[in-house]
């Protein structure tokens, strides 16, 4: 097996993909669906925002290991943060996984587990899908569908 594959499918990624955290619906709050028509990933992110703070966040749906793990890690990280802080985290994540493979890895705590995605450019959309959905849900007046295509 190649080192690229080990870097992509770290134990923490496989674990979160098989046992996603906060994998449930949320009655209160808003939701947005993220859809990747290329591979059929379809995740719904639920978010409850009060005074600009993410009080609760969850997701459900069907996706590949990268999209599912990214969503699971995301829900753990952004709960209790402001929408603006979550947005800033998403920007840093995007920079980290779009960088060339020899660039230094930004320390994003648990999200650094996604750094291996940078060696697989076609999988960047999988990792960002739930974050796009979170952004749409947090900003939305009503329910939204966002697409990575």
């Amino acid at each position, binding site marked *: *097996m*190649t080192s690229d594959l080990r870097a992509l499918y770290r134990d923490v990624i496989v674990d979160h993909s098989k046992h996603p955290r906060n994998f449930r619906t949320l009655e209160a709050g808003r939701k947005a669906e993220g859809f990747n028509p290329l591979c059929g990933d*379809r995740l719904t992110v639920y978010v409850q925002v009060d005074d600009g703070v993410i009080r609760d966040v969850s997701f459900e749906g069907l996706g590949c290991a990268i999209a599912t793990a990214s969503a699971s890690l995301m829900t753990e990280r952004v709960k209790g943060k402001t929408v603006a802080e979550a947005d800033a985290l998403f920007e840093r994540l995007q920079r980290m996984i779009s960088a060339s493979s020899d660039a230094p890895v930004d320390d994003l705590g648990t999200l650094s587990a996604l750094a291996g995605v940078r060696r697989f450019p076609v999988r960047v959309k999988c990792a960002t899908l739930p974050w796009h959905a979170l952004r749409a849900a947090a900003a939305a007046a009503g329910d939204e569908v966002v697409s990575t295509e």
Partner: protein
Amino acid sequence: MRSGSPGPARWAAAWDGAAIRRDFPILRQRVHGKPLVYLDNAATTQKPQVVIDRVTQYYVEENANVHRGVHWLSVRATDSFEEARAIVGRFLNAREPREVVFVRGTTEAINLVAATFGRSRVGPGDEIVISAMEHHSNIVPWQITCEQQGARLRIIPTTGAGELDLDAYATLLTDRTRIVSVVHVSNVLGTVNPVEEIVRIAHQRGIPVLVDGAQAVAHGAVDVQALGCDFYAFSGHKMFGPTGIGVLYGTSARLESMPPYQSGGDMIRSVSFDQTLYNVPPYRFEAGTPDIAGAVGLAAAIGYLTGIGFERIVSFERELLEYATDALSRIPGVRVIGTAADKAGVLSFVLDGVHPHDVGTILDREGVAIRAGHHCCQPLMDRLGVPATARASLALYNNHDDIDALSAALQTVRGLFG
């Protein structure tokens, strides 16, 4: 024929898989440091040297516009282009070359019929019948026709094994059915549909039938007269020819009765600002300069295939499909999707607990190229109850080593995901 056909003598002996692989230069490549194992043939096939050489030769020696010039090169280009049409006609067992319309591919062929037949023969309240295992390219054009003409789409259901329900099909046909359009070989399930029977039932009511042959032409001989179909559509690039060239076969009677598709040069007989007279088929449907190099390249691909012989290809691929099906079913957690009695070289599968997209990425790093996704068949995916599948699709240059590499790579997937 200047297609560089190897001739039957070379293949008179046993199947020489190594010689066939040598005909395809791209297969010598390494991917991520591993030998390339190309199992995405349902998406597109690789090109043998004779096809590459024929396209090059056309540009080096014959390039000019067709059907226009009085000069020597134009005559030569026209001869090559029309010879390609005749070769395609013989390949399909068409009655005459003018039943062969050159288009960009299967998609354009179906769009052509949906637009022109649809505009002239489909009206409000009419019905168009397709099946539940169609590619989006045999769904969306008809949806547009239905929308424009006020007609309705009816769907032939599939069974659990991935075969068409012919009893249900027969009951779908009514006095309002204007056309039936079905796939010959499913790009997801590999199912070979009983096209002759489908045509026979439709013709009892005088309903024309279009057959989407995109996945069929590389894997078996096609005889449009035996099938009895009114239209047959396929792409050159899925049968070892160039991209950008495809064919719509139509019976003369059907093509004569249809108005033009695109308009411009070559499709007209005479133009004035008061009135334009259209050319006869096939030229009526070939507006503008066609893909001349593509057409001669496709003819070379046909020469290559017929030189090997479809009987040999069919029996080789049947054995390889059995070997591959057996190998996959030995891997814990693998479920093959599509178990029709009559199948061509497509193996769709899911691996328990692993998304097909991850399977595709891991296999790629092992040098194994497969497709993962919905294969442009979202309604079929819904019917199968899966968001996507992984798909290995075979061609005549694949061998047991390729299947063994696929199996080993799937074991790597199992190793990563436990």
